[in-house]
């Protein structure tokens, strides 16, 4: 039985064309791009091409606005710390409660260091209150950082509007677009976004390569100092093979944008309707009308997500969960809690995230596989009896 991979928001398969483009950079083109000889200049040319390919996918005005980093997390840290260092008179960061840990953990640390962090709340569907946002924009704010698309629910934030509101008040705007790039058409030159993070392995490039987009003219302080690579904005010898791979992956993402928008969206909708239609006491989380085309997140009430994943895994189906048990923490996903999803449902959330590699027969197989698993686990659950939830179960120290 062929395994079915529905965890593309965690990581993606590297496209074979990407692998092929990378291989020569491990063997004959091993040079250092900074070297003056032929070995170096070949690599230098390849990096330039890759930079233009990334520029093309992002719709950036200049290729020099692309800085290669090691991952999305590095890009996020660089963006926020740069804004604080470059504007010592500003001490406040505005972000949201549902950001990725790459932003939230950094912000927690910044608070300990004496900075002020405002986290915008979300409603039951994971949407921001833009009036609250506007009221917080003042001249002590160094940077606003809001994710373009949520990794768990796929919910989109109106980052273009938010960036304009920030720009009107002279405030820098950063977006963690790790989940959005490659899945949504993006044209940065027509926005007021100053900084953007992307991660290669979310769009069929390898792990260990990321990008920070930095609008020309935006003030900047590097995180890593050393050599003059990336115009002194990110020292360290370029990861040439991965940069070349990311370039090709961006080119492919551009070509497949329509597939992502229509074919993948259709498969996702079919999967979601198929599951919600067959199973009682379950619902899709997030802003379902306004989300990534590849993501659906379903809360199955009164059962726990890790148990669902283990049973799915036995059938060769890979997905992920927001339950506490899968993360090693004692709390379920902060995104589910922020939306006010009750504990009995938050622990049973399963995220299915598709890619252009998924097929209709795969989706049919998942639609057939999930209902018996849910029924099996509900039979074991003390919160469930026959075909309905049990109200009176109230364990000690609950």
């Amino acid at each position: 039985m062929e395994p079915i991979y529905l965890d593309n928001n965690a990581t993606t398969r590297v496209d074979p064309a990407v692998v092929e483009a990378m291989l020569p950079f491990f063997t004959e083109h091993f040079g250092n791009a900074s070297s003056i000889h032929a070995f170096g200049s070949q690599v230098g040319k390849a990096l330039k091409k890759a930079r233009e390919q990334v520029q093309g996918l992002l719709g950036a005005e200049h290729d020099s606005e692309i800085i290669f980093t090691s991952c999305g997390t590095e890009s996020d840290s660089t963006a926020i710390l740069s804004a604080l260092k470059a504007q010592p008179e500003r001490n406040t960061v505005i972000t949201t409660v549902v950001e990725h840990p790459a932003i939230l953990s950094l912000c927690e640390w910044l608070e300990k260091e004496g900075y002020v962090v405002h986290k915008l709340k979300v409603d039951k569907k994971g949407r921001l209150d833009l009036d609250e946002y506007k009221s917080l924009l003042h001249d002590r704010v160094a940077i606003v950082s809001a994710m373009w698309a949520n990794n768990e629910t796929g919910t989109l934030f109106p980052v273009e509007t938010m960036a304009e509101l920030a720009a009107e008040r002279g405030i820098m705007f950063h977006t963690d677009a790790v989940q959005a790039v490659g899945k949504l058409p993006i044209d940065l030159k027509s926005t007021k976004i100053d900084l953007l993070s992307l991660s290669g392995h979310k769009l069929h490039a390898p792990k260990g390569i990321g990008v920070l987009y930095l609008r020309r003219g935006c003030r900047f302080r590097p995180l890593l100092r050393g050599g003059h690579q990336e115009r002194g904005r990110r020292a360290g010898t370029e990861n040439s093979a991965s940069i070349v791979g990311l370039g090709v992956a961006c080119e492919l993402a551009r070509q497949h944008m329509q597939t992502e928008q229509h074919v993948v969206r259709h498969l996702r909708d079919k999967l979601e309707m198929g599951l919600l239609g067959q199973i009682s006491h379950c619902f899709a989380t997030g802003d379902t009308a306004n989300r990534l085309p590849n993501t659906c997140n379903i809360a199955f009430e009164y059962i726990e997500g890790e148990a669902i994943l283990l049973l799915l895994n036995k059938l060769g189906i890979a997905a992920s969960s927001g339950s506490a048990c899968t993360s090693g923490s004692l709390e379920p996903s902060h995104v589910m809690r922020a939306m006010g999803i009750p504990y009995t449902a938050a622990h049973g959330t399963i995220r299915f995230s598709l890619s252009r590699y998924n097929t209709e027969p795969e989706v049919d197989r998942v639609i057939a596989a999930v209902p018996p698993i849910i029924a099996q686990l509900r039979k074991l659950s003390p919160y469930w009896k026959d075909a309905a939830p049990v109200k009176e179960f109230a364990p000690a120290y609950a």
Partner: protein
Amino acid sequence: MWEYSDKVREHFFNPRNSGPLEGANGIGDVGSIQCGDALRLMLKVDPESERIEAAHFQTFGCGSAIASSSALTEIVKGMSLDEALKVSNQDIADYLDGLPPEKMHCSVMGREALHAAIANFRGEVWSDDHEEGALICKCFAVDATLIEEVVRANNLHTVQEVTFYTKAGGGCAACHEGIEEILAKVSAERAGLGEVSPPPACPAAPELPKAQPVKLTSVQRIKKIEAVLESVRPMLQRDHGDIELVEVQGRQIYVHLQGACAGCMMEAATLGGIQQKLVEALGELVQVLPVSQMKTA
């Protein structure tokens, strides 16, 4: 994903004694929906011999919670109540060939359900001694509550001491920051109680000359700004550029970049560097802006 033993997997995929039990006379409901696990243990006890004739469970929880519940029912079946009370959470984990450290609480929940069910049969009130803080050390499964208790009881001051007493931090070292936070918290409380912390082993750094807190007149201020600009001018001129001070409006200092500096890609970086120097020289927060951004009255 977790490294579950074959035994855990086997008990999860084929749980024994699951579902309601007819004629149960000892029921223990424990767990916490917040943490994502809850367990109902049902015992059928012979009132004469006090022997457990049957044990069933219903569990809301992850793979290891279901496997631990299944193992528990197998272990206690046929035991007398006194024997069953001696079953420890380690016995449950051992029965399953071990649990990942983060999942040991699943076996603890099993033992608690057993005690609750026996208390229910005997008509007693069971009170839990459940205490579980945030897991700090994942290598040895030590939580914040335990570390804090041990730090207090033994007057510990360093991460190394905590490792010696609790094992916490002895593995991958990723939790050292967390342990330091607990040490800092307890030490702050000690200071509040008038207890003395140990003397610092490191000599103090020499005092740095402090910037004068005297408020500058606007002429003095402008002179200082000019002096800083003078000090950076040679560097700008080396790159065929120059800088001119145009206006000072409170915290905003407007400058005119000239020559090669005008419209240079690194303009923002240049202004940022100058701003840093000015902040240091003036001892106050100021903003350096290109003259194009100046609002003329």
